[in-house]
């Protein structure tokens, strides 16, 4: 059974009353199998972020259905939705989304602690995941004391610690320098390959995207094309560049900053 199924997703911004309505997503379909590492790419305004918000249950589709692990999200409301989110999904955001007032360790522990897991399990799992992500040494630090790359690893650790069905990453390398970005992507690749984590990543950066196994391109709210990676990452990277220029190099803003 696929981890994620999105069927005929449509999102229209602006209600009946407002004069301007924008169709951000138009009957979009997406299926992610267990253990996949999928990238979503597209120019600004193509609907990437909207898609991720719908999949992340942060926003509601105008029509269409989302199934995670076979369960439909349609009937969930309020607390149910929040509980669903924290049990089944893991998030990595461009802005890290860490709490300033908590150390990295405490940040990573939050999802498990909220679930009421015993202290021993929290410690053990935090140590294990921190070691795998190479941040075991800085666990006692506060976010402002560490680098962007370390922050994003901590965010990744938090997204993974409760072993969610699906990890949603929104421009995870957007605020990182190229070295830190590469290193983070290698970690995610490893987590996917060795740990079997299922990852869906929205990105703008062709280099980061080249770590994915499959890339779904999106334009004007509709699927544009799909690429699958072979064994050679460099070749995959060039394929991605080709698709991007085909989508319209001019409209593709390389210095794009989110929001």
């Amino acid at each position: 059974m696929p981890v994620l199924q999105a069927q005929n997703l449509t999102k229209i911004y602006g209600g009946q009353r407002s004069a301007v309505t924008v169709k951000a997503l138009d009957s979009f379909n997406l299926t992610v199998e267990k253990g996949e590492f999928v990238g979503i790419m597209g120019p600004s305004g193509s609907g990437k972020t909207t898609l991720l918000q719908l999949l992340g249950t942060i926003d509601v589709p105008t029509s269409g259905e989302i199934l995670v692990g076979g369960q439909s999200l349609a009937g969930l409301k309020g607390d149910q939705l929040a509980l669903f989110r924290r049990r089944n999904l893991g998030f990595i955001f461009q802005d890290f989304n860490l709490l300033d007032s908590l150390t990295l360790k405490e940040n990573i522990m939050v999802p498990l602690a909220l679930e009421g897991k015993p202290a021993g399990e929290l410690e053990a799992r935090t140590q294990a995941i921190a070691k795998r992500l190479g941040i075991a040494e800085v666990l006692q630090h506060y976010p402002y004391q560490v680098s962007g790359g370390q922050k994003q690893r901590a965010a990744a650790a938090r997204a993974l610690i409760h072993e969610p069905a699906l990890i949603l990453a929104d421009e995870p390398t957007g605020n990182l320098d190229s070295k830190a970005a590469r290193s983070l992507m290698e970690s995610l690749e490893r987590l996917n390959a060795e740990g079997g984590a299922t990852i869906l990543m929205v990105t703008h950066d062709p280099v980061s995207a080249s770590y994915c196994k499959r890339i779904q391109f999106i334009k004007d709210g509709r699927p544009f094309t799909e690429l699958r990676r072979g064994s050679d990452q460099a070749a995959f990277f060039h394929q991605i560049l080709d698709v991007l220029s085909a989508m319209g190099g001019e409209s593709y803003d390389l210095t794009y900053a989110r929001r």
Partner: protein
Amino acid sequence: MSIWHIAWQNVRHQARSYMAFFFSSTFAVWMFFLYASLLYHPEVEGPHFPDGVKTLLSGVEILVALFAVVFVFYAHSAFLKARLRELATLQLLGMMHRQLTRLLATELILMGSGAIGLGVGFGLAFLHLFLLTMSRVLRLDQPIPFHLSWEAVGLTLGAFVLIFVTIALLSRRMLRRSGIAQLFAAAAKPKEPPATSPWLVLLCLVTLVCAYGMVLTVEAERFARLFLPMMSALALGTYLLFTQGSVALVKWLKGRRAIYLRRTNLLTIAQLAYKVRDNARILFLIAMLSTISITVMGLFYNLYLSTAKEAERINPIHLTIAGSPAGMAPERVTAILREHGVQVVAQATIPAVGGGGLRFADLPANYAHQAVGWILPLSDMNRWLAALGRSPIALDRGDAALLMRQENRLMEELRRHGPMEAELEGSGRITVGTYLMDDPINQFSALVVTDEQFARLKGATALHLYRFADWQAAQPALLQIRSEILDRWPPAFASRPSIRGTGIFFHESLQAAGFFLFLATFVGVLFFLGSCNLLYFKLFNDLMEERPQFRSLGRVGILPREVRRVVSSQTLLLFFAPLLLAVFNAFMAVQMFGRMEATISWKPMAAIALLYVTLFTGYFLVTRRTYVRALLSQPLP
């Protein structure tokens, strides 16, 4: 686009931050003006107010002014902190220091004049109510009339213009000293948690032991001298207790992993640890303000309630009239008493010689002299004592008995020496053999001599003594007798008859006690509202920092009820840790003052503390609700 325009736009767009500062300033002006109006009210120096009230009011006004300064400064620094990023952005865009300070000054002028205007307006609106309350407290037949004093307006205006100008200058200095980068950093930079130091913990323990040690042992004579050291030690100790104690508490909690890592506790405790220094300062301020409020109100409430007892202690005889006032013959007194239906239980007229003093040659100079209120003959005195049902005085160890209401050094000496020779001013030597702690004639001291000795004294007059079945019921009669006597005798007239009565004393001291209680309540209410305001600032300043935090958590899937739990535990600590300490301090104060003044007991203090805690709890519930709502109001991104 002028600087005025930008200033106005700023005020409009950051309404919430401005509002908090504006209303705090308004509140400070309001309270200050209300008190200034009373201070400059012509009636204050009139007959209805106890003597020295003007001085006392000036003192309270200074207290209110100090409070206003601290309060407005705190409000402004909180307000400025919330806007550091905006100010830095303006500088980044090329605004010069001069322009920036002008911008800030312009804002302050706008808000300051608004606050002064509104505060004085509120003050005027409430002045009438304030005066009416005061008239009731003083039990005046005619309420104190409304009076707009320009001095009060001038004083308020002057004081607050000074405060606002000082603030403008200080913030100018602050901006000049810090660069743009620092401003940005200050807005974003989280504070590091303070470290505990064993020396500070030790200092904390030492100061607290000193403070409470003094509270538990200080005697009445040394109280005035020890008051300031005691309060300083208490303040320092409390401050250290909250700074060091909260760090220690957080450390301890973090060590208990089963507690620490349990669900929302992780968030609660981690955030506490992070904000511990900030919190400690607020906790300290609230603790001190609440301590003062509860203690002062409790003590004066105590005095107010004990007025009746005190009246009976000072005037055990329900009515004494010295001398024979013209037109106020004993028959007239009896007639008035009958008119009011007062039941007389015992009555006597005793010949007495007024005044004089005893000088003991054998005693050290500083207590060798004892003033004597009245000199009385033995046989009449014993008859009166018999009427009161007390045992008679026997002059078998000398030829005079000294009666004192209270113990003093002279009494100690007499007890040790036995009978002692003394010079009775104007009538030669006398041997004082008997000494009693008793007051059967409403005098602090009296001397009973043999009838023969008494016959030799000159200037004898009469003392009319009455005891009633119920002195409280006799109060109107006494007030009438007094006013009839006072009407007939010009105040300066030397032989004006003195009249004392339990009911009269009660009437007068109830007025005074009521007045002091009113002042205490005013200060208490002021500090209570001040505490509430500080907490409001603290919370809603944090809101700016907290909201993104809880939004982050929301994205990860925290439930509203979990947010509520985290916020509840944090605010609970913030509100009630200092309150608990304040209540404890208030009872320590009862312990201390109770040793000096027997009338002070814990029950009135408990009533005041309960009232305070109840109001505070109400404020807590409302604030928490508002805060959680504000926190959860913004939808997810």
